[in-house]
């Protein structure tokens, strides 16, 4: 089970690298989203995957799941959500101000027209 999830995380990270190496702003942003999915799966796997365990430590509970990776996972999901939203806003402004979504043209010091 763990091996399967790790391979899946690797596939996701590979796909995200492909997307981030492309020239379009939107594809790059999608790439960062997929990258964080891959890394979150990795984080979850690192806590150990168990079926049927509950994340509560109590004397009466025999088999429990480690709650910490899940708590970290939630935090990272929230942060990634905020970052992706902000990045999309910046991408729209880049497209409007600089008139391109091709990162190949985002170099040098652009001329201020206004």
């Amino acid at each position, binding site marked *: 089970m763990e091996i399967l999830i790790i391979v899946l995380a690797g596939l996701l990270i590979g796909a995200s690298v492909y997307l981030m190496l492309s020239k379009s702003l939107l594809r790059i942003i999608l790439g960062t989203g997929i990258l964080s999915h891959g890394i979150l799966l*990795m984080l979850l796997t*690192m806590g150990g995957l168990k079926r049927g365990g509950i994340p509560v430590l109590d004397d009466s509970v025999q088999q429990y799941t480690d709650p910490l990776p899940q708590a970290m996972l939630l935090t*990272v999901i929230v942060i990634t959500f905020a970052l992706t939203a902000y*990045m999309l806003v910046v991408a729209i402004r*880049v497209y409007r*101000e600089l008139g391109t979504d091709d990162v190949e043209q985002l170099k040098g010091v652009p001329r201020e027209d206004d």
Partner: protein
Amino acid sequence: MTDIIPILPIMIPVLAGIILLAIGRTNIYLHRVIASLTALLMVIVSIVIVYYVAQYGIIVTHVGNWEAPFGVSLVVDMLAALLVLATSIVTFAVVVYSFQSIDAARERFFYYPMIMFMISGINGAFTTGDIFNMFVFFEVFLLASYVLITTGGTKIQLQEGFKYLLVNILSSNFFVLAVAYLYSAVGSLNMADIHNKLSAFDGDASIMSLIAVVMLFVFATKAGLFPFYFWLPGSYFAPPMPIMALFGALLTKVGVYAIARVYSLFFIDNVEFTHQMLMLLAVLTIVMGSIGAIAYSDMKKIVIYNILIAIGIIVAGISMMDEAGTVGATYYLINDIIIKAGLFLLVGFIIYRTGESDITKLGGLMKIHPVTGWMLLISAFGLAGVPPLPGFYGKLFIVTSLFDNGHAVSGIIVLLSSLVVLYSILRIFISVFWGESMDFTKLKPISYDKLLFSSFLMVIIMVAFGFGADALYPLFDSAAQSLYEPSSYSGYLLGVD
């Protein structure tokens, strides 16, 4: 009383930021008053913190009363306390500087609240004792810095801001990955607890070397170490001068602090590999920074490449992990935060006054601004490390440590880099303040008393720090102690103090 102290440097700016957001966009004057008073309050609070830590040792707060290895703890040792103090001083200077240098549109669109949120994240990253919490605080100040680097929406800011966003999001994702590896290998997130577990472990801990590489990738990207500094000169060039001063003085130093912390606490097993790698990268950073600092004739670029040289020198000191090296690194770290801010603010004043950042187009300013000229010269000496000034003590300890450990070539490179630093800043001084006079009628008729107040304040603090360096040595030694003798940092978990 001591329970609440470590929380104050995080909470005060957050509360101020929320109040500023609630005030809204109409009253800029109120924004300025609240922001500067908050910064002043933070200076006072952090002096109290330094006093407490010097008096009673490390202060630990268990947030929510959860016991140490399980909950999130805030741990303020002397290193964190000094960094928080330096951060507060720089914030105060930059906020006052912003009154006359940031345009009204940016001020109205929540410039001061964003500075407050960024400072809160930086202070949090310095004071936290939990590696995942450090990631969260990194995100807090990075999010605020994304807003600061793009606020105003000029073309260059958007273009470079997007790259800055992308690079930092990438390295933040790898931070999570490194935390995941670390958690699966050690089973704890509390940094002191991880250190205790690793030093008690006598099996094969070679997995830690892999984690060291991932962590180095993360923090080297934030700090601007070779070869991950590629984004830094472009991104720091884009925003207005006060934002650049904050970034240059503080953001890269958080990365350096994180490197110092994790390399002293976690990677104690295979030091020949991990710390050797760190020193190699540090020396290469110094070399690349030196080339950049000489190559450009744009004042902003020259100062930005000087950041890289300083980062390299500090990391070289840290990588030695002995007493002299870490004491030197802490001296140079605090010195560099203060004087780099001062240098950015002085250069910013010249740019705002003349409207020009290319040194070949300026000259003869000594006739109009003699005091500014001499202040720039003093800050150049401070940066290069001329004896009475604090840069000298830092470099002396670092170079001594490098030679003692048999890294003569690295020591010589650090010494030569001082010459490059001196040459690059003197080049600004000579061509801007001496030489043939430029057309003085082209000077901008701006009011600049607050610009000069902030920049002179930083230079004066730096000089005072230099003359008081001997008296302050116990503080810096106890700050460095948690690096070269990490058990003094992690001791609070074992009930030893």
